């Protein structure tokens, strides 16, 4: 569960990247976070994960405040950042073990998960190579495996599908569904509205740092009084703001 209460953040001057945001992501749901470029999606995600400090408000992950009890909060989630270009000089296997050590994953569990996850995503044969030699999609996959390795309760993913091949994308979506069905939390941002439409239990639409809508697709249709695709409604919602 993620609770965002009255959170604001501005980088320079008066322009608020995130403006008084209130949002709760419940256990057992896949929550899609949508918005145009520069709407404040990544800023929000960075505040949830402790990368940025909010100017105002508080954020809790599974009840732990990210600024007051950062370590406990950080143990609750696994984070897939939008840019997978990290630890390029490490081999895939070294990166996975680094993550395993940081999250205290016991050896036997770790070994089994590395094997099953990397085989599932078609990465096992590449584990002994440096991440630098990986393609964009492969880098995305190794980061993903590193996150799933410690079996976090809350999944936070910034554009997780970007660069994944169709099979891996399908597997990931299935895993997200199963994770939510286990009464755990999945929170991800995306630009691909078709994915959000099919996958999410609820969506939040953010623009210029403000939450325009939060709820299920049916609720959105009811509110807009139209039976339209998410894409049409999304464009309509964000256009008013221009």
């Amino acid at each position, binding site marked *: 569960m993620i609770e965002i209460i009255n959170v604001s953040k501005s980088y320079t001057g008066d322009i608020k990247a995130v403006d008084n945001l209130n949002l709760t992501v419940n256990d057992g749901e896949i929550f899609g976070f949508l918005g145009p470029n520069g709407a404040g999606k990544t800023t929000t995600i*960075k505040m949830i*994960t*402790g*990368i*940025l*400090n909010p100017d105002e408000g508080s954020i809790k992950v599974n009840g732990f405040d990210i600024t007051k009890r*950062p*370590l406990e909060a*950080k*143990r609750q989630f696994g*984070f897939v*950042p939008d*840019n997978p*270009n*990290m*630890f390029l*000089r*490490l*081999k895939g*296997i*070294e990166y996975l*073990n*680094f993550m*395993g*050590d*940081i*999250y*205290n*994953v*016991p*050896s036997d569990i*770790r*070994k089994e998960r*590395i*094997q099953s996850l990397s085989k599932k995503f078609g990465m*096992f*044969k*590449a*584990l*002994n*190579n*440096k991440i*630098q*030699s*990986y393609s964009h999609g492969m880098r995305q996959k190794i980061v993903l495996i590193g996150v799933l390795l410690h079996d976090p309760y809350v999944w936070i993913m910034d554009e997780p599908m970007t660069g994944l091949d169709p099979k891996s994308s399908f597997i990931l979506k299935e895993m997200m569904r199963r994770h939510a069905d286990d009464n755990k939390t999945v929170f991800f941002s995306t630009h691909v509205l078709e994915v959000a439409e099919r996958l999410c239990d609820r969506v939040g639409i953010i623009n210029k740092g403000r939450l325009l809508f939060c709820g299920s697709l049916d609720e959105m249709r009811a509110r807009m009084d139209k039976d339209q695709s998410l894409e049409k409604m999304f464009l309509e919602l964000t256009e008013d703001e221009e």
Partner: protein
Amino acid sequence: MKSNLLTLTRVLLKNGINLGAGSKKRSSRLGFTAVLVICFIPLISMLAGFVSSIYDVLADLGQDGLILTSGIGMSALVIFVFGIFYVINIFYFSEDVENLLYLPLKPSQILGAKFTVVTLYEYITSGMILWPIFIVFGMKSGAGPLYYIYAALIFLLVPVIPLTAASIIIMVIMRFTNLFRNKDMFKMMGGILALAFGLGLNAAIQWVVARQTDLNQLQRLLAGGENSLMTITSRMSPVSTWAAKSLVDSHTLAGVLNLLLFIGVSVLAFFIFLYLAEKLYFKGVIGLSQTSAKGAVLTGRQLERVSAEKSPVRSYALKELRILLRTPVYFLNCILVNFILPVLLLIPMLSRQQGIEGLQGALDGYLRGGRVPGMVLGIIFGALMFFGSLNGITSTAISREGHGMFVNKYIPLSYRRQILGKLIPGVVMGGAGMIVLVSIATAVFKPPAHLVAMAIILGILAVLFSSLVGLLLDIKNPKLNWDSEQQAVKQNLNVLLNMVICILAAGAAIFVTYISNMGLWTAFAALLIGFIIIDVLLYRLLMTRGVKLIIQLED
């Protein structure tokens, strides 16, 4: 075509030099340039003095032109050696190559622009060799203004032929072989080779200078005819003879003709280069990769072995070390420097036998007298402190994270433990360098065992001090916004600042032990207790203020 070439040259230059982005950047760049210039002043003045004394000898023999021939030949040789590295790095391995390949440009335009950029870089090195020679020669021979105009023209054109030669060699290698296909491997090997070259050059200069006073010997070397050093150099590049002749005879028609010949050949070389670039470049540059993916598939047992659970701090420190060892720029500037630089700086001293004997004599004298002054320990401590500050492992520890710094913020590892994970590689590597240094010194000076033990104990405190100060500096003001690893380490003022602070601390230690006229054991106790307190205080500062600063750090 011409305008394309010029535009591209301008863009490449701006990109490479990073001018005008913020005053802070500019001031740090100025600082670096100043330090560089100061470092080279002794070398240049040494060269000028050498040329001046050699001129008198040669003028007696009526052979003064040899200075110019060999000077130009020498700079051509240096340009050629540097050129090999520049050409590989700038023509083939630079980051911009991928962005240039898809533009509607001819290979000759891309390489023409890059050739110009390299030529400009080469002027810095060739200028340091050529101008002292040109000016000293001009003053000694009382040359007229035409001489200096010719000299300027020759200075501008000297790099063309050796660079063309270097380019052709590399272009052929890249086109037809797999020798340098792996970027990281090449950078690593290239860096080590360059260092070896520098080491050799340093030793050679020391050797020459040490014998400079013996003019008779020099005369014999020069008058030795066919096999003399100078003739060999000029034979290696016959073109430099034309340039030299045009300078010697700058007031006659022969001078003009020789100059025209030199210009003509240089221009011809450039066109040959452009022609070959057209034929060779694209096929050589396409398909280069950063690293090759050649690791074998993991076996069950390997997986078992690598998946053993480690403590987070140990794993974090291991990650740091792996990145330090595998990234060529980091390896060369943080690890190798740690072990090579002490040797490099000791060469001048060791190359003079009387230097060692003098020091050893002084030490023996103290030992026989039964009272070694504490200042000896102050000096040892100061030296170890200085060498410990050279590596830059901790003073770039945060900067090296660059845009990946955010990862440290979301992993559930407390900042205190992360700081520890960054401190350990610096202390371990610095400590290893210190042990190497003490071992060499022990072998050379053969001091008594208790002095060696004291040196090692104080050395550990010195390494801790420089590591702690370095990390504090880099946490306070990290350089995170970079595109190439080079910028994180080489253009990082924290390294310099750390050195300055360590030099000051070393100076203070030497001063206190000297002024108080302490005995050996008193000095040992004073330094030991003093620096244990200082190190503990620094550590506590790192764990309180340092942690706060990291929390505040936002990209």
